[in-house]
């Protein structure tokens, strides 16, 4: 078949694996995407392994194997049957890594391996919701501030953006978590609204630099609506590479902030697994002990999971910005 000639500059760029690895940022893209894919697989496995009978333990199931009676999760229960409360084995119901529990169990006798993987699915869900909300709000605010310069709508949108920037994040987030009874959706919506400002800044900056170019003026002259110009010609054709990088960084920041919040006890609520709360429980709580030399198996796996995931996402975003030749300063403000 005869190929139609169209001018596509990327055709003249070399293709193939060797050419890919010669470009800047390729190594970090490969490492980052491998870690990200592992994260996704882990999230799916953690969510479905127990339901599909691939793994014998569920993330919330309490193991009674070593005891005849259920472990005392509360002091009340311990006081009710006080006969064995002062025997050491009764209240140390966690186990080290053994056969059956690859990474051991936590203080309530729950399997840590499946809990870490299930935590990945929590973060995947929360991150996706947050990023979606921040994209919607950020694109709206940014396009209004950039496109309708000097009008009253622009002033209102600009005011909202600067107010969102001036919030003390952690205070707002702990208040929201407390009054919503640690609801996943309330926390993610608050986080998404707070994270929207960066996206708004990016889009308003791009619009300001593109507003007087020929193709936008031509599009106005043809009679395209503002929504088409902003949505298609500015956001989709000229911002999508910036937004894709921001989405990846957004996931990383959600994991960081949620883990921090649930470390101080104001994160996503109990039936859902959160890495920050696992670290809190495994490292001795308010006054952490030396968990690396002591009970290493409880806090180290979620900590490694947090570090690994954020490292992978950061590497992926950075490699992408290098390869797409996005300047770092371009998505700062």
């Amino acid at each position, binding site marked *: 078949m005869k190929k139609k000639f169209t001018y596509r500059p990327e055709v003249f760029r070399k293709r193939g694996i060797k050419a890919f690895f010669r470009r800047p940022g390729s190594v970090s893209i490969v490492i980052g995407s491998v870690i990200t894919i592992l994260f996704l697989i882990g999230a799916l496995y953690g969510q479905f392994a127990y339901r599909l009978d691939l793994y014998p333990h569920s993330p919330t199931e309490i193991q009674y194997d070593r005891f005849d009676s259920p472990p005392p999760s509360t002091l009340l229960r311990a006081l009710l049957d006080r006969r064995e409360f002062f025997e050491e084995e009764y209240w140390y119901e966690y186990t080290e890594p053994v056969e059956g529990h690859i990474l051991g169990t936590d203080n309530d006798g729950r399997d840590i391996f499946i809990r870490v993987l299930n935590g990945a699915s929590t973060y995947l869900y929360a991150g996706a919701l947050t990023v979606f909300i921040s994209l919607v709000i950020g694109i709206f605010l940014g396009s209004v501030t950039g496109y309708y310069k000097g009008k009253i709508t622009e002033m209102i949108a600009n005011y909202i953006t600067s107010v969102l920037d001036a919030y*003390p994040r952690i205070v*707002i987030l702990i208040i929201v978590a407390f009054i919503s009874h640690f609801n996943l959706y309330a926390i993610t919506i608050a986080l998404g609204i707070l994270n929207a400002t960066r996206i708004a800044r990016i889009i308003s900056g791009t619009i300001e630099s593109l507003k007087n170019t020929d193709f936008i003026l031509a599009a106005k002259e043809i009679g395209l609506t503002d929504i088409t110009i902003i949505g298609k010609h500015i956001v989709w054709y000229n911002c999508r590479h910036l937004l894709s990088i921001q989405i990846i960084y957004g996931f990383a920041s959600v994991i960081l902030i949620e883990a921090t919040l649930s470390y101080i006890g104001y994160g996503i609520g109990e039936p859902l697994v959160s890495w920050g709360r696992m670290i809190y429980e495994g490292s001795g709580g308010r006054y952490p002990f030396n968990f690396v030399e002591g009970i290493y198996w409880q806090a180290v796996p979620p900590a490694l999971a947090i570090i690994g995931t954020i490292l992978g996402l950061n590497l992926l975003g*950075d490699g992408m910005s290098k390869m797409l030749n996005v300047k770092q300063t371009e998505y700062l403000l």
Partner: protein
Amino acid sequence: MNTLRTILKEICIALLILIGTTFTIYLLLGQLVYEHHEGVRTTPSFFSLTADYGEWVTDAVLRGDLGHSATTNRDVSDIIGTGFRQTFLLVIGSLFVSILIAIPLGVAAAIRTNTWFVRFFIPGTYLFSALPVFLLAIFIRPYWVQSFGILDWYADIPLSRIIGYYGIPIIILGIADGVIGEMIKHIREVVGGMVRENYIRAAIARSARISKHILKNALLPVFTIITSRFSYALGGALIVEYIFFSQGISIVALDALKYRDPNVLLAIGMIFSLLIVIANIMNRVLTVIVDPRTRT
């Protein structure tokens, strides 16, 4: 005259932003308080909250009175003032630490590209940007307790111990949470673009000093990152305080939330957003001083 007008405009904008933040925090905190109407427990309505907020603002602006705590009946400014010094020390110290580490490394990475040091050290900064503050803090805390912890303030304490007592949390806050990695990236890009320009090459050729120019340009992204990261830094300070010290703003805030004490939380939120707004204004002023082209 012109500068006076811009200053007045800035102050007006800052006040409007502060009103916006405190009003939304007030609305959120309204959910903490209960009212009883004919035996039914409800949270106060939007209109009554707005009226209360007006009262609070007039009190705070005219008399400097931030209300009193609902649990202990002490003045809020009294409760916060003691804990706030520590947080301020932590934040300012950590910003200095991160600037002191980031500027030499970023400039070195920009000037000496393709050396072994840069090739292996710059990927190492990714690891630091992936470390949450609380993780590094709980890892270090046991060793910190062993060597510096729990000071008896009435005894004679050697200065080295006090420096360690505050210094290690400050260093942790400065290193972790991705501030350093981001700073190094941006400084590297800005300085790397600058070194290739003609006037710097001419300056090198006539063996003039270029360190002044380089530092000037390296400072710009640092200011921007500090202001855009300031609310993160405040949050990190709260976390570090929560883990290392038994008293401080974070403990006050969490207790106020637990015992449903909205005035304290409102004051904390107000002071934090005031700090963020001041940091934004400082950023604009310093940017104009460093680079007069950006004046509008």
